[in-house]
């Protein structure tokens, strides 16, 4: 085990957990998940993953520099 987590993987994992819970609720019929709701969730998750990846690599470069 390493001390610092891989931020990109961590944020992707959290995003998938949130998305998965929404999909489970949709599969159970608790919510109706059309593209109107799914698209913002997906785009938001993608943005968060890219942002996390960008910030992590910047921090990594600074650490090395």
């Amino acid at each position, binding site marked *: *085990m*390493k001390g610092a*987590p*891989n*931020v*990109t*993987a*961590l944020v*992707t*994992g*959290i*995003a*998938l*957990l*949130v*998305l*998965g*819970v929404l*999909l*489970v609720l*949709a*599969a*159970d019929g608790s919510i109706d*998940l*059309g*593209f*109107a*709701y*799914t*698209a913002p*969730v*997906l785009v938001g998750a993608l943005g968060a*993953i890219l942002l996390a990846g960008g910030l992590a690599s910047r921090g990594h470069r600074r650490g090395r520099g």
Partner: protein
Amino acid sequence: MSSAEPEPTRRSRLIRTRRGRLIGGVCSGLGAHFDVDPILFRIAFVGLAIFSGVGIALYVAFLLLTPEEGASRAPIHLRRSAWRSVFGVVVVIVAVGIALHAASHAGLGSGWRFGVGLGWLVLVGSVATLVWWRSRGPAERWRVSGDRRLLGLLALGTALVVEAILLAVAGAWLAGIDGRVAAWAVVGLGAVLVAASFTGWARRLVLPAAAFALAVAVIAAAHVDLHGGMGERAYRPQTLSEVRDGYRLGAGRLEIDLRGIAFPPGSTKLHVRLGIGELVVLVPRGVCVETGARVGGGYVGSLEDRDGGFDVDWSERPSSPANTPRLVLEGRVGLGALLVADHPVERAWNRWGGWGGGFGGHVHPNDLGTNEACDATGVSR
């Protein structure tokens, strides 16, 4: 042999040259080896690539099996005895390809191309993974063969992309068959990624896991149901008793031709369902058609009206004179098109103009016919 006899000329070893190269130095190397203009080899490779795709495979094979100028070994170095094994692998691949072709025909009907395409993806991914595996090694080995690292990165990238595509297909299929299991699989993948983020191998999982989840989400959002098989189905009932209560297909093209039926006065209900693809219902003139449809993503065209986009809820409930035959059509399409017409409709692929066309087609409402047996339209979305 006496010293006066001339020595037989030895052709130089085949290498990928650095001078005159455009990509990997394969064509310039072949040109130098056979003492002809490399442009001839370039034309041959491009021609083979365009017409059959073999050119790309051949080029990659030359890239992997011939050493670069100045390097002692090729990126993949094969001993003389190993060539027999390579030939054996090629023969096995051909055998798998033939079996895949036959199995896809038997299992998927007219959707066999999907199976074959998937098989080729698996093959490309396996080869890329193998090349990446072989190209790994300490940095000093890369110096021996200058482009070994680039080759390794290309192979790794190809393997990751193929892996992501295969997982996306698997996710889409699972979500179309059992949405709940697919949703729990996404939750599980998320948990694994969170746990793995504290270890060294998490980064490798990000792209495949995201591709799987994205496919599941899109299929769930479009309410795609892949039950009912795959391929191309056409039904042409000639009497009302031959008409089923409903028709369904998982993926492909479903056509129901009702034009040969004499519908009696009053309402006749019909349910049609398609997961992904094109659903066409051909109706006889003289019947008032009432259409209710839901399309997750794609296009609805019902005789005189049409609509497209995401989450399309279509309701066309026109009134009709008494004793007019009435067809009440309830349709669901996950991703694709639902078309109601009074004459045969050209296939979506042809309407789009193949790869050069755009999604949604260019079907003008007049192309589908008229709902002339009805009094007035009552379209709502």
